[in-house]
Each structure stands twice: as structure tokens, then as C-alpha cells.
């Protein structure tokens, strides 16, 4: 081989470097031919890793075999999915054609204008077999309750379709109790009655932030407390709110598992599944994934599932935790993505989805006795959905509010602060955060 001069070496290196750096651009250019066509070769779904996206992964290949469109499910853990989506939306990226969204994320994405409207763009209409609350939760600005100041006056659109009809419920050992607890007083009485060494009367999911927040909100609401009123005024330091958190973190805690301040859903399910606890709140995915899972649980058939018991307010309010599918604004395959959602929620396909572990929103499927045999919580879920469960406050500041509130509840569970002190401090912080975000304080 002939030796090359230094000048020639630099020249060749520069050419190689230019080729290397332009390679992604060339690839992107090749890809753009695909995305501009009506029928793309591939749809990419950003999904949450776990029980929530398992059934989706199972039915996606069916769509692929029917249409020839490759379905790629890219999974992220819960927190990372949210961060990934926010940063993708901020950059108006086209990495994902569909995204799974927890319903409290809708205000953030709605305010950002990050999603394509499913009704006006793709002709989605409400189906009478699906409870209206399920459509409401995917609509932005919210059709009920307070609307963030920046969103007032905007036209409502449907941006997300629920594919995991999660609503927080209540579970207890039906083989031990003679009747279902109708109120939180009954829950307390049962906790007292059944609590003994190595068997806990109640399980508190009290780990800091999201777990403590999710576990306590149904109790807060059932006691007549709340985080905000209808005009975004903070109610967390109201008497009803303090009473609710005192009930959970002091009265019920006497009969709860040790280390409740560090208990998350997995720890709770474990205690229930090995027969060491009597009752707790629960989510459908916990039921299918652990409590009623063959080969995992020792209490299969021994648990009953009911809507959240009533509190002093006379209401028992479950909390929605729906997972929705939406189409990012940056996606260049909106029509194909919308077709996939329509395909997925068709009664027959949703039935297959349920048979693969999915949690439906269709009333007909929730009340289907055959499906109910393998999913004992379906009747409770149908009742909870019909009773119009609460959703978490529809504000783009929800993550901040939840972090503050969930930390305060955790402090009260851990005994670091009294419920009153914890909630008063949290209310002050939330007022400050909301004021800064432009909400009336």
C-alpha cells in the first residue's frame, strides 16, 4: 500500500467524518418516505412496563397479522415513561405514534397541546357501552370540575381512549368476615376484630409521594375532604381533610402492618397473598397480577372486591387510574394510529384483550359472567365506574401537588408529624406552588 501524505490523511479523515455525521440524516430521509405514505410499515407505542401493558403486547401481533403493520411496543417504567413523553412532546418528536398515559398526566399533556384530537381529527364518538366518565377522563379541558386558568375557554376535545379501566377498589377476606364493610367505621371494626400477631387488620400503602397519595385520596374524599375546591382553593388543611388523614394514619394504623411508611403496592399484595392481612384498598392490576394469580397467591377465592366504603360524608369515592392511548402531535402516522385504537376497543377485540389479562371499560364485558369467573373484581369495577369515581385534580401541576401531599401523608404515617401539622405544611406549599403556576391562591 502506498503511504499517504499528512495532508491527504487529513482530507480523507474529513471526508469520512462528514459521511459519518450525515449518516443519521440520510437514514432519516429514507425513513420519511415511509412516514408520508398512508399505510406505514410500523407503529411505535410508548408503553408502561408491567401488568398494564402486558395484554396490549399480547394482542398487538393480531393487529399486525391483520394489517401487515408492525407494532413495536417500547416499554418504560412508570416514572421514566412520563419523563420520556414530556421531553418528546417538548421537542415535538415523532418517535412514538401512540403513547400510553396514566390519567393524571392528561392535564399536563392537554395543557402542553401535545396530543392529536381523536374526535375532530379521526372521528371518534362516544360508545354507550363505555361509561361516560371514561371518555371524560380522556377529554381536555375537563368536562367537569375546576378547569386550570390557562385552559378556560378552550374547546373540549377527546385526546385519549382508556385501554386499562383502572379504578381503585377495596378488598377484604370474605372467608373470615360475615359481611362486606359498608363504611370506614366497618373497616375499622374489622381491623380491630381480625388483627392479631402476624395477621394485620389493615394494610396501609404509605410509601412517600405517589403510593401514599393514591392510598389516602379515596379516604380523604369519603370523609368529605379534598385537595382543592371548585375554584382551586386549597382544602387540605380543612377539618374534614385532617380528620380523614388522622383516621388513616393514627386510628387505622394501630391495626396496620409494621413499616407502613415504606409499604408500596408490591409489599401490600405480598401480605395479602400470603394470608397475613385482612383488608386494604387495591387496583385491578394488583388483583390479576398477585392476589388472584395462580401459583403466586395463597388466598385465591378468599378475597372479595367491593367499591370504596362510605365515609362520614355518606359517599364512598373510588379513584380513577385509567391508562389511555393517545396520539402524539409529532406522530406522522396519526390515521393509522387511530385505526389501531378503534380496532382495539371493538367489542370482540376487547374481549380477546380481556382474555389476555386486560382490564376492560366496556360494561358488557365487565358484566360478562364468563369473564367474571376468572376476574372476580369485574362486578366491583363495573359498580365503581357506574358510580362516577373521582379523578385526581385536573391540573398540570398535579405531579407537584401529589409529591407534596404524598410526602405529608408519609410523614403522618411515619409519625414524624401529626396529621394536622403535616397537612397544614403541605397546604401552604401547595398554595405557593399553585400561585406560582398562575392559579388563584
Amino acid at each position, binding site marked *: 500500500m502506498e503511504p499517504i501524505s499528512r495532508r491527504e490523511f487529513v482530507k480523507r479523515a474529513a471526508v469520512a467524518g462528514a459521511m459519518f455525521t450525515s449518516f443519521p440524516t440520510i437514514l432519516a430521509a429514507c425513513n420519511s418516505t415511509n412516514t408520508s405514505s398512508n399505510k406505514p410499515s410500523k407503529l411505535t407505542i410508548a408503553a408502561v412496563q408491567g401488568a398494564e401493558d402486558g395484554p396490549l403486547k399480547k394482542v398487538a401481533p393480531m393487529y399486525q397479522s391483520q394489517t401487515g403493520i408492525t407494532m413495536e411496543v417500547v416499554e418504560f417504567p412508570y416514572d421514566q415513561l412520563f419523563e420520556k413523553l414530556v421531553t418528546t412532546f417538548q421537542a415535538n418528536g415523532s418517535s412514538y405514534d401512540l403513547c400510553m398515559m396514566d390519567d393524571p398526566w392528561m392535564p399536563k399533556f392537554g395543557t402542553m397541546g401535545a396530543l392529536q384530537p381523536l374526535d375532530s381529527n379521526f372521528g371518534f364518538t362516544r360508545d354507550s357501552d363505555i361509561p361516560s366518565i371514561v371518555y371524560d377522563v380522556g377529554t381536555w379541558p375537563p368536562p367537569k370540575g375546576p378547569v386550570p386558568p390557562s385552559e378556560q375557554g378552550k374547546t373540549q376535545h377527546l385526546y385519549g381512549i382508556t385501554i386499562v379501566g383502572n379504578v381503585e377498589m377495596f378488598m377484604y377476606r370474605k372467608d373470615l368476615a360475615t359481611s362486606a364493610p359498608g363504611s370506614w367505621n366497618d373497616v375499622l371494626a374489622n381491623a380491630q376484630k381480625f388483627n392479631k400477631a402476624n395477621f394485620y387488620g389493615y394494610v396501609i400503602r404509605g410509601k*412517600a409521594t405517589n403510593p401514599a397519595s393514591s392510598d389516602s385520596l379515596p379516604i380523604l374524599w369519603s370523609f368529605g375532604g379534598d385537595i382543592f375546591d371548585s375554584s382551586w382553593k386549597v382544602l387540605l388543611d380543612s377539618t374534614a381533610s385532617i380528620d380523614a388523614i388522622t383516621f388513616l394514619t393514627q386510628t387505622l394504623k394501630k391495626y396496620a*402492618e409494621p413499616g407502613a411508611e415504606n409499604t408500596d403496592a408490591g409489599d401490600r399484595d405480598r401480605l395479602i397473598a400470603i394470608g397475613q392481612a385482612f383488608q386494604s384498598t387495591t387496583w385491578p392490576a394488583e388483583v390479576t397480577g398477585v392476589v388472584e394469580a395462580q401459583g403466586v397467591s395463597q388466598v385465591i377465592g378468599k378475597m372479595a372486591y367491593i367499591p370504596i366504603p362510605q365515609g362520614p360524608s355518606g359517599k364512598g369515592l373510588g379513584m380513577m387510574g385509567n391508562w389511555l392511548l393517545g396520539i402524539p402531535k409529532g406522530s406522522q402516522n396519526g390515521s393509522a394510529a387511530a385505526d389501531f385504537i378503534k380496532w382495539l376497543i371493538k367489542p370482540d377485540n376487547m374481549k380477546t384483550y380481556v382474555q389476555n389479562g386486560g382490564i376492560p371499560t366496556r360494561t358488557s364485558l365487565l358484566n360478562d359472567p364468563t369473564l367474571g369467573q376468572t376476574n372476580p373484581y369485574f362486578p366491583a369495577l363495573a359498580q365503581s365506574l357506574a358510580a362516577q369515581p373521582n379523578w385526581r385534580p385536573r391540573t398540570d401541576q398535579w*405531579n407537584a401537588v401529589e409529591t407534596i401531599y404524598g410526602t405529608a401523608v*408519609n*410523614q403522618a404515617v411515619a409519625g*414524624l408529624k401529626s396529621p394536622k401539622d403535616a397537612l397544614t405544611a403541605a397546604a401552604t406549599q401547595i398554595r405557593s406552588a399553585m400561585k406560582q403556576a398562575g392559579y388563584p391562591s
Partner: protein
Amino acid sequence: MVKAGRRRLSRQERLAYLILLPALGTVFAIVTIPFILVIQQSLSSDDGTLIGLRNYARALGNPQLYDALHATGVYTLIVLPIEIVLGLTFALLVHRTVRRPGLRAAIYVLAILPLVVPPVAIGVVARLIYAPSYGVLNVILERLGLIHQEINWLGNPTLAMISVASVDIWQWTPFVYLVMFSGLQTVPRESVEAAQIDGVTWWTQFRYIELFYLRPLFILILFFRLADVLRVFDHIFILTGGGPGTTTQLLSLYLYRIEFKFFDTGQAAALAVVVLVSISIIYTVIARFLPLERA
């Protein structure tokens, strides 16, 4: 008259700069540009309007920052001295007592293992050790008859801090060991042998001969470990989520929450700049106070 600074570069120098250009360009693209953007963001509101130092005032006026700094300080004061003392002790023990190359290699591999395990995995394993009701540690202590009631490792503020610190100590003491052990290999054998002929004690040999060669490595360890402690996130997130309350919410977790939970980009950027400047000052002080061999 031609100024010295303006002299023309020789052909060789030009080539050297040209060859350096890709590396410097990469550093500029992935370090300098983001840092400039962070500074710009720290001076701007969400809509991009310049608002002066308001984000800095908010960041420094948030009482939770000081809780996080306190937690980080406590964590650092627990982990760094213990890791350095343990790592140094192991290194001296192995250096002086283990002579067989095969055994040394085995210890080397064992020491490497904790360093290559992802912190998330370590967090999950640590949770199995410390978790309430099924944690292995409580079971062992109970079986040994040392405790009769479960210890709430992750729910008690003091124990939670000790628990998360113990994970750091387990993972990073081997790093100190490896650095110190390699440092001990550079100690001239003649000096040690001469001292031993003079009948020096174990401690004198370390104090007056080996420590001299290890001093620059202490700085290296401090530099690396201090930066690591400020970045520590994964295992704390999994073990306690910053709880109970905010007891184990270290600076990195606090910053994460400001950015990804509160979505307060301005405040998060201001905090990032403050942390970077503070670290630079701390590093400069460390470098001045400890003797560093300079070329």
C-alpha cells in the same frame, strides 16, 4: 515588532490542533453547549423571557433545598470516612498478608463485582434485605436471638439514613480498596525493606512510608466519591423514595423532583448551576489543602 502571543503556528502545531479538533468539538457539543443552555434557562421564565436572578432567588429561598443539603451532608459524612477507612484497611491487609497471585486476582475480581452491578439492581436487593416484614436482615437477627421485635430499618429516620448509606458503603468501598491497593504497589520495596531492617512497627511503616505515596490517591478518591455522592439516586429512590418524609431526600432526588415532578425548569436549572459552582469551589479547596504531586 512581533508580539510573542501572535507568532505564527508551526505546521506541526497546526496539525496537532487539527487532530485535537474532533475531541474538543465533541466536548464542546456535549458539555459546553448544554451548560450554556442551562445557564440561559436558569435566567429565563418558562416562556423564555429573561427574568434575571429570580430563579436563583426561588431556588435558594426554598426551605426544602436546605433539608436536602442537610440530608446530603449527613449521608456524605457517613459514607466517605467509612469507605476510605475500610477500603484502606482492606488494601493494607491484602497488600501485606496475601502473597499468592491467584488469591490476589480473586480478591480483585470480587472487588470489581459491586462496581459493575447497576445501582437499580443493588437497590432492589437492598430492599429485600431491609424491607419491613420480609427483610432478610430482620429474619437473621431474629433467628440469632439478637432482636425480638422487627426493626423498622426504612421507616425510622435515623435507621433509614444508615440503611441507604450502607448500600453506598457496600458498593463503593471496593473502589477505594482498588485505588489504595494499586497505590501500595508503587511504594518502593527497598524503602520498606530498609525500614523493616530498622525494626519499624506496622503503624510507623504506614505513617511514614506508605501514606506518602497514597496521599495523591486520597484526592483522587475524594474527587470521584464526592461527585458520586452528589449524584446518588437509584438505590435511594427504590429503598425509601426519599422518605420517611424527606429524611433521605438527597440533593439529586430533590433536583429530580423539582425538574420532573414540579416541572420547574428554571428553578432546576438554577439549582444545577449553583451545585456546579459549589462543587468547583469545594474541589479547588480540596486540591489546595491536600498535597498533590504536580508534574
